[in-house]
């Protein structure tokens, strides 16, 4: 039963879920700091990010180790490769959360600034997406992963709206332009977090079905029950 490989994969799965949890947490903190203008909170993400970085390196080494020692094929191989990519994505999410937090720390000084409604909608959406894609990973749930992908469009739309919203506010309030740029940047980071969650969801789909759907290239042929191809 390839006992050892099974065990290693189980461990790896746990670790990536832990990393996912940390990524959720860091995003949540960053957004909370934005909402609550809590500079201390915002600064706390830095430590968390360091931890995430370490976890990412460890997971990558673990993947490499598994590839080298157990030489997985088929589903196992796809799993490791997917983990490798998710790992990268989750680490990026950590970085993005740091970006958000740094900006919200700057913004915190200026409580009067109006944070557009959309930004919170986006925040909420991307948090959900992140949660959902990790759940999809746990359950190898293709359907739920596909939902994540759909939600990404909403986030993109919201981000596009942001420009107009911000511009409107900008002209109306004429506050420090830098702050608006910051808000825009936060929106951008959220959009990217959503993107990365989508990537993860795509990887889950790939894992569960064996199809790459990224870049819209998904060649959708599904499993058959008889035996295949070359014979009569």
């Amino acid at each position, binding site marked *: *039963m*390839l006992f050892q490989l099974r065990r290693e994969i189980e461990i790896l799965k746990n670790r990536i879920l832990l990393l996912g949890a940390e990524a959720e947490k860091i995003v949540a903190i960053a957004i909370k700091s934005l909402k609550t203008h809590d500079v201390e909170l915002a600064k706390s993400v830095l430590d968390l990010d360091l931890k995430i970085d370490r976890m990412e390196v460890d997971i990558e080494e673990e993947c490499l180790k598994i590839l080298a020692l157990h*030489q997985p*094929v*088929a589903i196992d*191989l796809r799993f490791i490769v997917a983990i490798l990519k998710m790992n990268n994505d989750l680490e990026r999410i950590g970085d993005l959360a740091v970006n958000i937090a740094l900006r919200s720390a700057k913004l915190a000084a200026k409580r009067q600034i109006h944070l557009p409604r959309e930004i919170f909608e986006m925040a909420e959406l991307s948090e959900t997406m992140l949660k959902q894609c990790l759940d999809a990973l746990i359950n190898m749930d293709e359907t739920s992963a596909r939902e994540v992908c759909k939600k990404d469009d909403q986030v993109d739309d919201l981000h596009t709206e942001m420009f107009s919203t911000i511009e409107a506010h900008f002209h109306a309030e004429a506050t420090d332009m830098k702050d608006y740029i910051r808000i825009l940047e936060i929106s951008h980071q959220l959009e990217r977090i959503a993107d990365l969650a989508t990537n993860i969801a795509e990887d889950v789909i790939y894992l569960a079905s064996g199809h790459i759907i990224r870049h819209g290239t998904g060649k959708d042929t599904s499993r058959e029950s008889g*035996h295949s191809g070359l014979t*009569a």
Partner: protein
Amino acid sequence: MNAMDSSFKIQAQDVSFYYGNTQALENISLDVQTNHVTALIGPSGCGKSTFLRILNRMNDIIPGIRVEGKIVLDGVDIYDRNADIVEIRRRVGMVFQKPNPFPKTIFNNIAYGLQINGYKNRSDVHMRVEQSLKDAALWDEVKDRLDDSALGLSGGQQQRLCIARALAIEPEVVLMDEPASALDPIATQKIEDLIIKLKEKYTIIIVTHNMQQAARVSDITAFFYLGKLIEVDKTEKIFTNPKLKQTEDYITGRFG
């Protein structure tokens, strides 16, 4: 039954095989593509060797066997009553699990097959011996000792000699039954590299219980289980993303 197709060298059509009363193969249909390496994998006793040996009627020497279905070589059924077994075996060469050079000189090991097949002219024979040794990537290692006993060669060299011997009579298909399982990793590598080179000229079918080997050398992989052909597909497909759960379970070791 599908139509004859010239890109298929051998077509097994609904083949069943019996050792006495025990059925060893069940309705196998498999088309072997010309100039490809086809690997047969599966757990021990699943019928890989049996199937391979059907293809050049090597099983005929076992008493009490029975073949059903058709094995079509270039459009002709080799199990036809009028088929010339000897000629079939010339066209479908074979390399065995353990290197088995004849206890003759290196030269005569190869010349034997030629003489049997009617090469009389000495210089002809010489030329073909050299050529086949070159094809088998052995020429440089043995060219100065053609008259030494073949038994003095190392295991890996012996196996390449056996391959050269098979190639000398210009077969169209080369069957190999676990050709590297008796060799150490380094000799195995040489054989694997050779197999990949040989497919330019020959159609190769190889049985291996080393899945990694199948992965490395073959273009097409066929997975046998309990006498049935479970799945056959491009090797990379089988090893990254097989269609059937059974195949996936086997190659990832979730089996048994």
